Each structure stands twice: as structure tokens, then as C-alpha cells.
């Protein structure tokens, strides 16, 4: 009887857990699993402007077409550059500012924090369009600054491929460093002060303290943030789309997601775009798994 009673309690607990989990399961199935599976099916279909209602599953030919597209490899390379450069600057600037704000001598810390978080707090499209205005060749603030105070020639920020891509990167660096700064600030708060005191007793220089105390103890906080940052940046369509005005000039400032968007919603190549988005998914999924395993990012530091 005791066994049955225990079993019944356990069963009740399981049912209760199931009851609590059910809404989440339904929600995840509806907004993640179903669209994902639909995208898989679309990627195997011939859905385009001529077959938007009567599309059929045709096999892997869209995947073949993705890898045969000459621009795919070029844009993949640009996406890697875009992600790498952005993340390096986000982390370096973010951690630098966080360490600076963590110093005792800094006066008015709350005000500095608010000021530095502002780029992140503003809606991304407003910031992106403002930067686009600032990059205008004739009337933008950047060129006025360059020509008036630095005595240099104006730069064709938005009309030359390299400069336009650089303009998008600069904008995204501006937008992204506050996130890393906030994460790093949180991590710094959790580092015991005794470790710095011990380092002081040992006569460690500020650089040694940063390298041997701060950096290793920030690692478990920063690595998941870096993975998140990489995935977000890799998939960040807003900045590239708005700053370069849909990949101008001549579709030479695309990253993979903006290329997918243009193929799907501009050229109505839904099957091909779905195949490319699956390729992006595989790239990011593989990267995240390898990065997590290699860096042991989820393991505790202490």
C-alpha cells in the first residue's frame, strides 16, 4: 500500500509537471518547431513566383543551386568578416569600458553607465538610419569632420563597396559594444575583491592583475555572451539592410541573411531562400557546438 501511495504521489507530481510544461511545449511547437519544419520542406521545394500556390517538393536541387551561386562564397566570406570584426570590437571596447567603469577613481559612474548604454537602448533602425545620414558624401557629419578638421579627402562611404561595408560595420560596432559592456560589468561585480588585494600584496601590475585575475574570471560570463553575440551579429539583417540600403552598391554589401531576405521577399525565390537559410542554420549550429565544447564555456570558473 505504501508503495502504491508513493507511486501515486510520484505520478501526481509528474502530471503536475506535465501540466506546467504543456503551455511551453505547445508554444515552442507552434512558433519554433512548426516554422522550422515548414522551412525544411520549403527548402526542398520549387516555390517561386511561378509556383507560389502549386509548389512541389523537388528534392535537394535548391541546396545544389545555393552552393553553385557564385555570390554565395563571397557573401559567406563577408559574413565571417562582418561577424569577426564586430565581435572583436564589441568585446574589446565593452570589456575596456567595463573595467574602466569598475575603477574606484571614476566619478559619476551611474551617469557614465547610462550614457554608454544609450546606443543599445535606442531602436536599432533609428540608429542605423542616423548613421546612414552621417555617412552621406556631401552633407554627412563624418565627411565634414574628415575634410574640415583632418584635412583629408571625403570618403565615398555609401557608394563604394568596401567603404559601404565598412560603414555598416562601424555602425554595428557602435550599436553592439554596450551589450558586452553590461555583461562584463556584471561579471566584474562577482569577482571577489580579496583576489585583487592578494595580487596587490604580491606586487602585481595592473596589466598582470587584468590578465591573471580579471580575464580568467570574466571568461565564464563572457563566453556565452560572445556566442550569443556571434549568432546575433551573423544574423543581424537590420544594420546592413538599412545602412547600405538593401545591399547597395550592386548587392556588394550583403551578409547571408540580407541575401536570403532579398531572394525571398524581393525576387520571390522562396525555395532557394529557404535552402540558404538552412545552410545558415547548420553553420551557426555547428559553430556554437564546437565553440561551446572547445571553450568549456558552460563550466563554472570557481
Amino acid at each position: 500500500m505504501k508503495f502504491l501511495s508513493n507511486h501515486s504521489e510520484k505520478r501526481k507530481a509528474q502530471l503536475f509537471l506535465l501540466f506546467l510544461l504543456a503551455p511551453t511545449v505547445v508554444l515552442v511547437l507552434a512558433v519554433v518547431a512548426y516554422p522550422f519544419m515548414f522551412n525544411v520542406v520549403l527548402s526542398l521545394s520549387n516555390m517561386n513566383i511561378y509556383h507560389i500556390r502549386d509548389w512541389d517538393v523537388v528534392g535537394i536541387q535548391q541546396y545544389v543551386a545555393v552552393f553553385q551561386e557564385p555570390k554565395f562564397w563571397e557573401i559567406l566570406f563577408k559574413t565571417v568578416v562582418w561577424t569577426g570584426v564586430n565581435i572583436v570590437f564589441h568585446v574589446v571596447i565593452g570589456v575596456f569600458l567595463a573595467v574602466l567603469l569598475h575603477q574606484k577613481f571614476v566619478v559619476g559612474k551611474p551617469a557614465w553607465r547610462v550614457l554608454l548604454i544609450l546606443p543599445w537602448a535606442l531602436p536599432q533602425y533609428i540608429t542605423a538610419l542616423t548613421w546612414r545620414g552621417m555617412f552621406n558624401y556631401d552633407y554627412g557629419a563624418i565627411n565634414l569632420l574628415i575634410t574640415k578638421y583632418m584635412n583629408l579627402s571625403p570618403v565615398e562611404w555609401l557608394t563604394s563597396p568596401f567603404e559601404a561595408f565598412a560603414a555598416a560595420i562601424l555602425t554595428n560596432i557602435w550599436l553592439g559594444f554596450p551589450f558586452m559592456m553590461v555583461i562584463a560589468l556584471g561579471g566584474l561585480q562577482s569577482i571577489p575583491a580579496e583576489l585583487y588585494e592578494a595580487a596587490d600584496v604580491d606586487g602585481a601590475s595592473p596589466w598582470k592583475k587584468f590578465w591573471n585575475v580579471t580575464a580568467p574570471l570574466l571568461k565564464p560570463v563572457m563566453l556565452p555572451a560572445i556566442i550569443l553575440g556571434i549568432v546575433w551579429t551573423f544574423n543581424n539583417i537590420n544594420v546592413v539592410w538599412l545602412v547600405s540600403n538593401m545591399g547597395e552598391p550592386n548587392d556588394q554589401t550583403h551578409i547571408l541573411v540580407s541575401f536570403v531576405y532579398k531572394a525571398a521577399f524581393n525576387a520571390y525565390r522562396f525555395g532557394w531562400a529557404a535552402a540558404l537559410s538552412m545552410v545558415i542554420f547548420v553553420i551557426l549550429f555547428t559553430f556554437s557546438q564546437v565553440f561551446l565544447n572547445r571553450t568549456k564555456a558552460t563550466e563554472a570558473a570557481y
Partner: protein
Amino acid sequence: MSRLASRLVLCGLTLLVAGCASAPDVPRIRIWHQKIGPERLFFERVIAEYNDAHDDHVVEVLYRENEEARNLFVIASVGGKGPELLFGPSDNVSVLALTESIMPIDRVLSDEYLAQFNDEGLIGWNDRPWMVADQVGNHLMFVYNKRFIAEPPETLSEMIALLTELKQRPDITYGLTWNYTEPFFFLPFLTCHGGWVMDEEGRPSLNTDATVNAIQLILDLRDKHQLIPGTTDYDTAEATFKEERVPAIINGPWSWTGYEQSGIDYGLARIPMNADTGLWCAPVVSSKGYSVNVNVPDEKLPLVRSVLEYLTSPDMQAAMARELSTIPVITEIRESEVMNENPLLQRSLSQIEVSRPMPIDPKMRQIWDGMRGPYQLIMNGAVTPQEGAELMQREVEKRIADTFL
């Protein structure tokens, strides 16, 4: 139950009832449109008047930029949703009809009603009418500031001479400007060299001498004569003309009232002729009008018909011609005194006489998209005229081929 708890329950119930209360249960007719500036204000005013006069249904309008409206409409329509009406340019029709997103307009409007419209008023594709227009236009013209230019130039050589002289003034930055990002603005230069975007069989025809010569003309205007800016986009071109730093701009009817509101004393003229070929720089001309979502149920069609007949009626087109200088597409109004009351309309018609009709062909999407990038590279001076023409042809052909994947 304590008094506090009772009050909380009461408040909760009140909020619940208030939250559940919905708008009066009348059918809604939703319109997505791309009208901007004064035309949008006019549109919203007449819709408000329509709603005041009707209790049994309500019209709701939502502005969406043209590309966004068309793309979202197709996607919504395929999913069985979307607004009842879509307002946009006639070249949307082929994409909308091909994707079965709209229904033939003669399913909604009677033959008697449609008989009032001229050929520009009914947009057909594959032998069926799919759109009913409220205006024809969308054509580029040579817009000049009368403070600087008394008499507009007739030929390109006259234009270059006039603008070169004007550019000597210290308050003038450049002689002429237009949007460098959209190939729509390139077509007048192509047509005055005898070129066109597709041949008679609908194949892209951009790698031609005409394209090379058109590109060379633009590069000469920029580099040799230094009459146009090195780089610009639509907004910058508009701003420089409104600030009177540039005496002339190539732009369309949607912008004219804005110039008036900015206090510019402007004149309209045909984009000059190429004396070497004897051809006018002909822009494309297209109608703008309404299409009906294929998902509108039969019981709602009478309401949609009522809204459509109101928005495209002879009275409405006459009012638009008077207030907005749009060109009506109802024969009776086109031939009426309304056209003589407004000198802008006469000049606008004069440009339309030498314009090319916008092809109603789904390939136009790929042609615009394929031309856009090379056009930008040309305007940036990144490619030679020959390379530009070859690149345009290649990009358009690739996009057309890709669409069938």
C-alpha cells in the same frame, strides 16, 4: 470576502468587460496604399468623408511603401489574408495576377462602369483587366527653378550650355540632379539614344550601343561638364533642389506639390531631346490604381464595389486633377474643362505624349533589380560604359534565370 477583495474582483471584471468590448461589428474594407504627401492627405480626407456617409461598413487605410506593400500583399494573399484593396502602380499587376493574389476587376465592377475608362484606366494582363486606375502619370519630367531658368532647354546640348552657365554662380552647387540609386531615372537617357529594356519578344536588351551611349552621356555630365553631383540619392537630390542649390531636377508628379509647399517657383518641361538621334528622353509612364484581393468573399464584394466606385468615380478624378494635378483616366473628365484649368496638367500631358508605357510583364521585377546595381556602379564611376552595359545585361539575365529555380 473582505471589502478590498470585493473591490479588486469588481475592478477585474470591469477591466475584463472593457477589454472584451470591441469596435462596432461592421464589415471593414482595408486598403493598403502608397500615396504620399498631399495625395495622401487628400486620400485620407475623402476616406473620412466616405466613412461619415456610411454606417454599414468602414474603410481603413494603411500606408505601405510600394515594394513592401506588394511583397506583403502577395504573402498575405497566398495565406488567405490581406487587405481587400491594394493601391499601387500598374507594373505590380503582372506579379499580383501571376501569383493569383488579385481577382479580375470585371468580377467586381460592371461593364457599364468600366466603359467610362480609357485604355490607361484599365490595366490588363493575359487578356483580363486586373486593376482600375484613378490616374495616369508616374512619369519623370525636367523640373526647373524659375528663379534661375526662364526658358527650359529643348535639347540636351542646350541644357548643357544653360546649366554650365548657371553653374558659374556662387550660390549654385550643381546644374542638375536626380536619384542615382533607381534605374527608373536612367530610362530617359536610354530612350533618347534609341534603347529600351527589352526587345519585341520580351528578352532583355541592355547590352547595346544605346545603353553605352546613355551611360557615356551621364558620365560626361558628371566628369566632363561637372554638372551633376558625384554621388546622390533621392532625398539628397530633393533637398538640394528645395534649398535652391541646384536649379533643375528630374523628378515625377509625386514631388511637385512638395516644391510648391517649399516656396519654389518651379516650372515643368519635357526632359530634353537628343538632337543627334532626334529622340526625346522619354520616361516610362504608368497608371496607378486599385486591385481587389482574391480572398474577398462574395458577400463582401458589393461593399468593395461601393468603395471602388467612390474612389475612381468621375467626380473624384476631377477633384484630384484640380487639387493634385493628377491626370484622370476617365474619358469624360480627360476631355473636360478640368484639364484646361490647370497649366501643370497640360505640361504633364505634353511629357506623357513622348513617354514609353510601363511594360506589364513579371520580368520587369528582374529587369529593375538587375539594372539597379550596375546603374549605381556607373553613377559611382566604378565601371566603364561598355562594362556597365554588359553588367546590366548579365545581371538581368541571371535574375530571370534564377526566378525559375
